[in-house]
């Protein structure tokens, strides 16, 4: 039994956020600050023949104008992949802050810093740009063809990194000889993060030092990218959240869509602080999206429904620039191959440049795409064998210790229990295959999967933390990891208090500031609690040893006979509050301070989702009636926070299946450039969501915890598609299930 772990303690940032006192990047105001506005490309692909900024510069109140001609010619990658690509792969550095070629509608052409946002916008309108429009390509399959326009010059046509491949056993042979075979395909859409706080940065350059308040979800990697662009030592660049971030979901794993370098360059030019806040349309059209693309899965099974062979092939739309490239297809393939026990597996994943906004990290990071097509294949196989989709899954899912394609242990799983619980709560046996007739038809569906608890082995992943006892025994925790809303600030404090034996009430945290915290790769990959928590355990172990050895020396006792719990040291017949011990130590010139340094392993986080839907066969409208999400997240350090992650992930997954999509016209201009046109769900669109936590302690995580942040997004689309199939007998291969697509399928 723990003192703080496993308890739904209130969030440490709750007060700040319900009173309006909490500061976000949008709220940062520095003295004498200027405002930036970006001029964006109206063309999907064009060469800039000339830019005339003289009229803009002449406008009263304009302080700086930057274009490709007067900005650093430094190639970089805007995402964490810049410094986090795992060797032997090399990061793809394929963009400048401004270039003389624009590669999608919305690409940055120039930026202005002026006394007011209105003046900056007016000045943007005065910049005269002469373009030579170039042929453009928007579909990745077309972009792979000979003769398609080159978005960038690459060895393999429009392909920034060699395709990701895995081969274990002999897929082809096993598939050919399987008694039952299915071969399914899917087309998946562009989904957008649509986080509430748009990408933004406030930069202050002076005297060779740069401070940037930013919406990034990875302050240390962002500092590294900025230092390279600005030609400055990393030590002179400070990047911080102020400290709150209005959601992220992957859109700023690295730069906040270039807001940081644009603000920084303008600040250096104007010698004043510069605020660069994107408006909602810019955020929709000119920041990373989830990769859209084409997927195929082939599954072979024997007559008993035991899987023999599985292959996934995917072509993802990279868009105009590489943020994460090989990493996303890696997760897409590897994680969706690591659900079932299949002796012969193969995958082939390719990302292809086109003239649309970049595909990048988004909650699930390739896994929602891969899982959607694998679960489609599993349902098709169940149908072919006339088996219950639930039973075929229970028969084939991996058990702990089973070999798989990943380079870490399948150390724990409660997936079977998750499946049983989700099925029970959705009333699977009663509702699946129930008789359907009439205009409105109901159905239930199930999907399962697995996700990571940090970014390794797909990206570089490590952290350090400081732990320090104040002279009154209270505990300071410093970590570079941002809290982008998921609650890691709170859960990490719970882990620290538990691990050291402090009183929770005396723990304070500083986070996501490169000046006050050691290196951390960032807040992504469902990693914050798992990876940073492991690091805190290391530091706490050291700090506790220091305290107990010091006490033992004072008492003439042995350190191993002493304990520290809830701020009290006991043992060897003695007892003293940590508060008094630290006070005494301070007077004897002693500080207790520890650094945790870890490279985390990884642990699988399992999930089973069940959905019940209602399909209106006349209008094509699909409504989710009830949704059950059962998650094996290891130990739930703060169950209320875990539930919040699950509920939010499900909402995003329902959107992926039914509503959310960015479409473009034939010129590559995006239609869905704001909340209304994107059809983002509001409260009335949400079904009853039941989050079920199935605890299954994993040996590697802090107090047995595993990741959960992304998981709920991963299997939700296939669960809904399966429910629609149960309702109307059609398995749709294209998302989202708009009424038009539904009706076309019914015809």
């Amino acid at each position, binding site marked *: 039994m723990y003192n703080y772990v496993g308890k739904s303690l209130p969030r440490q940032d709750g*007060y700040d956020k319900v009173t309006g006192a909490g500061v976000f990047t949008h709220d940062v105001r520095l003295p004498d600050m200027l405002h930036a506005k970006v001029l964006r490309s109206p063309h999907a692909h064009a060469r800039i023949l000339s830019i005339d900024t003289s009229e803009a510069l002449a406008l009263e109140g304009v302080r700086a104008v930057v274009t490709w001609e007067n900005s650093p010619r430094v190639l970089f990658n805007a995402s964490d992949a810049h410094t986090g690509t795992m060797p032997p792969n090399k990061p793809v550095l394929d963009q400048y802050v401004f270039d003389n070629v624009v590669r999608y509608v919305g690409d940055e052409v120039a930026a202005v810093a002026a006394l007011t946002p209105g003046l900056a916008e007016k000045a943007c309108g005065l910049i005269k740009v002469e373009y030579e429009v170039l042929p453009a390509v928007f579909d990745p399959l077309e972009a792979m063809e000979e003769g398609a326009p080159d978005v960038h010059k690459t060895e393999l046509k429009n392909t920034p990194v060699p395709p990701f491949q895995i081969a274990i056993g002999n897929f082809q042979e096993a598939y050919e000889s399987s008694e039952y075979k299915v071969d399914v395909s899917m087309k998946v859409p562009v989904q957008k993060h649509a986080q509430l*706080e748009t990408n933004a940065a406030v930069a202050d350059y002076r005297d060779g030092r740069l401070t940037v308040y930013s919406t990034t979800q990875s302050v240390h990697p962002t500092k590294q990218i900025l230092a390279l662009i600005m030609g400055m030592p990393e030590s002179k660049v400070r990047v911080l959240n102020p400290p*709150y971030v209005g959601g992220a979901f992957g859109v700023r794993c690295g730069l906040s869509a270039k807001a940081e370098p644009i603000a920084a360059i303008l600040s250096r030019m104007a010698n004043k602080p510069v605020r660069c806040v994107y408006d909602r349309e810019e955020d929709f059209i000119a920041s990373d999206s989830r990769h859209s693309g084409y997927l195929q899965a082939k599954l072979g099974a024997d007559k008993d429904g035991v899987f023999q062979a599985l292959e996934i092939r995917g072509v993802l739309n990279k868009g105009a620039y590489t943020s994460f490239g090989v990493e996303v297809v890696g997760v897409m393939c590897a994680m969706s191959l690591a659900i079932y026990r299949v002796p012969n597996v193969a995958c082939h994943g390719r990302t292809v440049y086109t003239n649309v906004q970049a595909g990048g990290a988004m909650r699930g990071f390739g896994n929602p795409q891969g899982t959607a097509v694998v679960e489609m294949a599993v349902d098709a196989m169940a149908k072919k064998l006339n088996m219950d989709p639930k039973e075929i899954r229970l028969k084939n899912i991996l058990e702990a210790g089973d070999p798989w394609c990943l380079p870490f242990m399948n150390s724990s799983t409660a997936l079977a229990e998750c499946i049983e619980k989700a099925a029970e709560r959705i009333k699977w046996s009663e509702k699946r295959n129930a008789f359907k007739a009439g205009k409105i038809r109901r159905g239930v569906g199930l999907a399962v999967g697995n996700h990571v608890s940090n970014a390794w082995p797909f990206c570089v992943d490590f952290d350090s933390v400081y732990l320090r006892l104040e002279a009154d025994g209270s505990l300071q925790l410093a970590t570079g990891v941002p809290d982008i809303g998921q609650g890691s600030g709170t859960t990490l404090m719970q882990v620290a208090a538990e691990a050291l034996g402090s009183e929770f009430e005396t723990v304070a945290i500083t986070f996501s500031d490169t000046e006050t915290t050691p290196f951390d790769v960032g807040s992504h990959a469902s990693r914050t609690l798992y990876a940073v928590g492991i690091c805190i355990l290391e530091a706490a172990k050291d700090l506790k040893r220091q305290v107990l050895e010091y006490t033992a020396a004072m008492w003439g006792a042995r350190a191993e006979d002493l304990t520290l719990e809830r701020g009290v040291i006991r043992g060897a017949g003695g007892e003293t509050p940590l508060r008094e011990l630290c006070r005494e130590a301070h007077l004897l010139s002693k500080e207790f301070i520890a650094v945790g340094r870890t490279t985390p392993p990884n642990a699988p986080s399992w999930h089973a989702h069940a959905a019940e839907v209602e399909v209106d066969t006349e209008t094509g409208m699909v409504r989710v009636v009830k949704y059950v999400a059962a998650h094996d997240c290891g130990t739930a350090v703060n169950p*209320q926070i875990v539930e919040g992650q699950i*509920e939010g992930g499900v909402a995003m997954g329902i959107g992926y299946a039914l509503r959310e999509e960015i479409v473009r016209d034939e010129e590559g201009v995006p239609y869905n450039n704001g*909340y209304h046109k994107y059809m983002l769900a509001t409260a009335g669109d949400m079904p009853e969501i039941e989050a079920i936590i199935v605890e299954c302690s994993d040996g590697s995580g802090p107090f047995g915890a595993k990741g959960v942040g992304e998981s709920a997004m991963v299997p939700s689309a296939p669960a809904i598609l399966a429910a629609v199939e149960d309702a109307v007998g059609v398995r749709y291969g294209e998302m989202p299930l708009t009424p038009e697509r539904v009706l076309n399928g019914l015809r």
Partner: protein
Amino acid sequence: MIKRIRFHLNGEKKEIEADVSLSLLDVLRDVLGMTGTKHGCGKGECGACTVIVNGKAVNSCLFPIMKAEGAEVLTVEGLQKGGELHPIQQAFIDKGAVQCGYCTPGMLLSAKALLDENPSPTRLEVKAAIGGNICRCTGYVKIEEAILSAAELIKEGR
């Protein structure tokens, strides 16, 4: 054109000079420096900027400042009374309705406008009241629970 405008903000008299083209949101954030009210889209599509004007929840980004003349305006900064959190604020913390927190001020004000008018709402009425407030983190589940719980707290006089 600059004009003088008088209104009550969180119970206090305000007299300011502002450009007539500004929205109430611009005035709150950029003239008065009160950044608790958030800017999410500037088009009335997300509700992050919701405040209460004369008892009604409005999108302050679409509310011309000149229309605030003589009005009673309540923002998130005005919810606390004497250092005590309003029951809706407390319920948002207790029920886990806060994640990134960017939609929170607007949600709180939409909730307050609802509960002031309808102290015992159903879940559907809660959904309708926050229908103009977008949240990307929570799936709205715990926000709805918090508002329903706040209604109970208020009725119990806490």
